[in-house]
């Protein structure tokens, strides 16, 4: 007995020794650590270093000079108030829409939700271009009303209020999705109790529903804030002509004008932007947790009848969609169908030349489409297996390392894409060690940025899928003698196929048209389709830009509709455009 007791005194150290022997699982998590470390942690670390240190020395004067500059202060102020105000607008619209869809017996709900969420899927630079075009003479809606702009008139959207309006409309679906998810968790009997206590529909919503979905509203507002502050497409398309500088457009313009010599200063600005983003997320997160009510119980959707309000509410709801969807998109199509900007659209001026140019004549556009397809496809191809492996460690193996990798991937996703862009330039500017080849200026640096940026996006539906799967399926395969890679391939991947498919769709749709990550990384040798619109618009080819925008919207619509056809095989609640 005493012999046994002695033996048991030192187990802790013994186990640490045995853990050093690399098992299959350990080798895999080390590979994952290398992947995330090289693509997310190291570039962001390099960015922080470059922000503070120039040539290895900490130059506080330079830092104070850059951050204290009048233009930088102005851009910081603009960034903060534009993001906050547009977040407020998005929260208001999104919450109202969620209450309408989730609480009333509104008709044709599925179609309305599809239309309401659609703007979120359209690339922001296309949205901005479409809104700019909606006041052009080619707009099929406003032109017949005579509401077009005369040459020389200042465009009303070229202002900070224009940016706020478009950012608010663009991000409203984010708040909508978050609040609707919260609404679905509210048990119906709480509302029935309020109704039987004599509360009318409006007091029910104000006194019962809103407090209960409060955390959903704030979570959505946090998403809207992060999305607003990092939305390059709208800020650049409207802010640059309007001369309303924000941090994100300032980084872009200065890097374009001064090149890599401005990198250290831009790293500092990128860090400032990152800090603002994180502060915004933290504050909204904290506000959301204050007085958060946890409710349990069967959630059975209770719908308030609109009754005589049906017609006015439906008119408002569909009118909103007409204003934010049909008006700009029809103008975009109108502009794409005329030969030159400013021409009215009629039977004499209509032409498909822009589309022909975009698809067949203009080599740059064709190559950009091809590059975007190639990079997006490769990104999906790499990220799905990586997310499945990382998800395995996160859900079924608790460990500090995997949680650290998760945090790093979430950070790389939440931070504005332009920050990843600056980090990638800094990290890959010099030739790679050992092989002495520089990938800077090639499509591969964009590829690296995609892998870093979208890992968390691919991981989310897959983590959701893991939570549904009984871990004994994996353990049974261990019992059968299968190693980690065989198990992931033979058991986990097939069982998680629906979640993996949903993740692939989300990553593909997001990466195919993205602009903010690649706008700094594109070069004459490497173009993606996202920034193409900005370059065409800057070069004065508005009608060609509109045609490219139309093609991008068509591509997105096609992908969304195709994914809807397969939606019954996909996990519920992963595709945001499906009610």
């Amino acid at each position, binding site marked *: 007995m005493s012999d046994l007791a002695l033996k048991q005194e*030192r*187990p802790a150290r013994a186990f640490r*020794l045995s853990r050093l022997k690399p098992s299959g699982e350990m080798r895999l998590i080390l590979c994952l650590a290398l992947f995330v470390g090289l693509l997310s942690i190291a570039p962001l670390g390099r960015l922080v270093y470059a922000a503070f240190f120039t040539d290895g020395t900490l130059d506080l004067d330079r830092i104070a000079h850059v951050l204290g500059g009048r233009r930088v202060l102005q851009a910081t102020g603009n960034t903060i108030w534009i993001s906050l105000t547009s977040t407020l607008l998005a929260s208001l619209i999104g919450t109202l829409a969620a209450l309408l869809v989730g609480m009333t017996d509104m008709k044709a709900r599925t179609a309305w939700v599809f239309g309401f969420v659609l703007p979120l899927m359209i690339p922001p630079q296309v949205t901005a271009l479409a809104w700019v075009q909606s006041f052009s003479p080619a707009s099929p809606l406003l032109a017949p009303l005579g509401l077009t702009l005369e040459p020389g008139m200042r465009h009303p959207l070229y202002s900070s209020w224009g940016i706020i309006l478009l950012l608010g409309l663009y991000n409203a679906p984010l708040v909508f999705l978050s609040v609707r998810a919260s609404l679905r968790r509210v048990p119906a009997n709480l509302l029935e109790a309020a109704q039987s206590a004599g509360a009318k529909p409006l007091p029910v919503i104000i006194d019962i529903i809103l407090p209960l979905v409060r955390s959903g509203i704030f979570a959505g507002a946090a998403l809207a804030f992060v999305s607003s502050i990092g939305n390059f497409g709208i800020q650049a398309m409207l802010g640059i002509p309007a001369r309303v500088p924000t941090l994100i457009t300032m980084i872009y313009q200065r890097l374009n004008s001064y090149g890599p010599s401005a990198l250290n200063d831009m790293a500092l600005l990128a860090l400032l932007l990152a800090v603002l983003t994180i502060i915004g997320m933290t504050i909204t997160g904290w506000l959301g947790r204050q007085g958060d009510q946890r409710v349990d119980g069967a959630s059975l959707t209770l719908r308030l009848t609109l009754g005589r309000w049906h017609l006015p509410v439906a008119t408002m709801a569909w009118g909103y969609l007409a204003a934010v969807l049909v008006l700009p998109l029809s103008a975009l199509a109108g502009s794409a169908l005329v030969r030159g900007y400013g021409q009215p659209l009629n039977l004499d001026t209509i032409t498909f030349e822009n589309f022909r140019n975009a698809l067949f004549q203009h080599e740059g556009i064709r190559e950009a489409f091809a590059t975007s397809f190639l990079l997006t496809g490769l990104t999906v191809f790499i990220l799905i297996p990586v997310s499945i492996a990382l998800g395995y460690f996160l859900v079924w193996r608790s460990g500090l390392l995997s949680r650290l990798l998760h945090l790093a991937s979430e950070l790389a996703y939440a931070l504005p894409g332009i920050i990843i862009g600056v980090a990638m330039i800094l990290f890959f500017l010099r030739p790679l060690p050992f092989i002495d080849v520089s990938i800077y200026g090639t499509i591969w640096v964009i590829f690296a940025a995609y892998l870093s940026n979208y890992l968390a996006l691919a991981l989310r539906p897959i983590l959701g899928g893991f939570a549904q799967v009984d871990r*004994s399926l994996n353990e049974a395969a261990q019992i059968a003698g299968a190693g980690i890679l065989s198990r992931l391939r033979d058991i986990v991947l097939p069982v998680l196929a629906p979640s993996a498919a949903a993740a692939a769709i989300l990553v593909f749709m997001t990466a195919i048209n993205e602009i903010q990550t690649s706008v700094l990384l594109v070069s004459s040798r490497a173009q993606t389709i996202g920034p193409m619109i900005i370059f065409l618009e800057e070069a004065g080819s508005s009608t060609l830009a509109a045609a490219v925008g139309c093609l991008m919207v068509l591509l997105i619509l096609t992908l969304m509709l195709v994914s809807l056809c397969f939606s019954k095989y996909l996990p519920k609640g992963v595709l945001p455009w499906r009610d």
Partner: protein
Amino acid sequence: MSAIEIAGIHKSFGQTKVLRDISLSIRSGEFVAVLGPSGCGKTTLLRTLAGFEKLDGGEIHVDGRLLSGKEVHLSPEERNIGVVFQNYALWPHMSIEQNVSYSLKVKGMSRPDRTRRTREVLELVGLDTLSTRRPADLSGGQRQRVALARCLAMQAGVVLLDEPLANLDVHLRATLEEEFSRFHRRSGATMFYITHDQSEALALADRVAVMDKGRIAQFATPSTLYLEPTNEMVAGFIGEGKLMDVSNLTPGNDGRAHAHLFGQPIRLRCAEDARARSEARISFHPSDLSLADAGVGIPATVKRITYRGDHLRAEVAPDPAPDISLTLNVMPPFCIEQGQHVSIALNDGWVLPDPHFA
């Protein structure tokens, strides 16, 4: 066929000690059930055997091979120990045949050998006609047979079963219990069966280990557990056991003893080395009590009667100690009613070993 040697193992999750100094010697080919209330650590014990959990102390050997111990932890895939999971854990995307043959495939067995062996195993469990079906198309009993076939195919010397009948209805259970016995005879594997249901454990196992709060309370054959529990936990847990204090215990030399219960002399069983003492604790079961002729046994009052079909279950309070409730079964013809004054006799009882001398 493999012998399992568990020596002084410990396991904690954070501050909670889940396994405390557990030692079990299991003979090759034996059917052992681990029985205990939920939260007693029996599933953790199974998971340490399978290799899903590392030990904090102690060793596990199977057939002399060290599986878990100081600086040694063979992963589950290296152990060749079969597990039948509570929900069977059949892979939903594979056919029955693929489920059964997967372990052979990862071992690198050639396709013809694999097919042949899988067919043999499926014939053995009577599923050869269903080999192309998916698990979702099978009944509960068929799923269990697939899970067993998986263990047969991998020729596991040890098969661990984690409450495999817990989620099934009573009628199916009886059939499936029979299935386990047949599987045990056919494979000759050492079986380690986790359950919280004592009728299952007592019916199936050669020996039962009763677990309580991370320790083994007693490891013995079912009849020993029922008739000769070594401590109060086992005595109270098995077969609706009841504990009572007796006075003036005087053991004989033949494992028999005399004592007094409420002043009445009774005859008891005891361990051969039991000593005479003034106070002792005994255990007995409802079937050990019966109604006696008036004036012979202990006077009592009937508190409650429950009709159980072939018998009546009566709760009675002995008049010398009305707070105590005793349960006894009354066989027909029923001539008893609530509030009636009766006389009861204790026909058998077991003297628990004195904890101070253990």
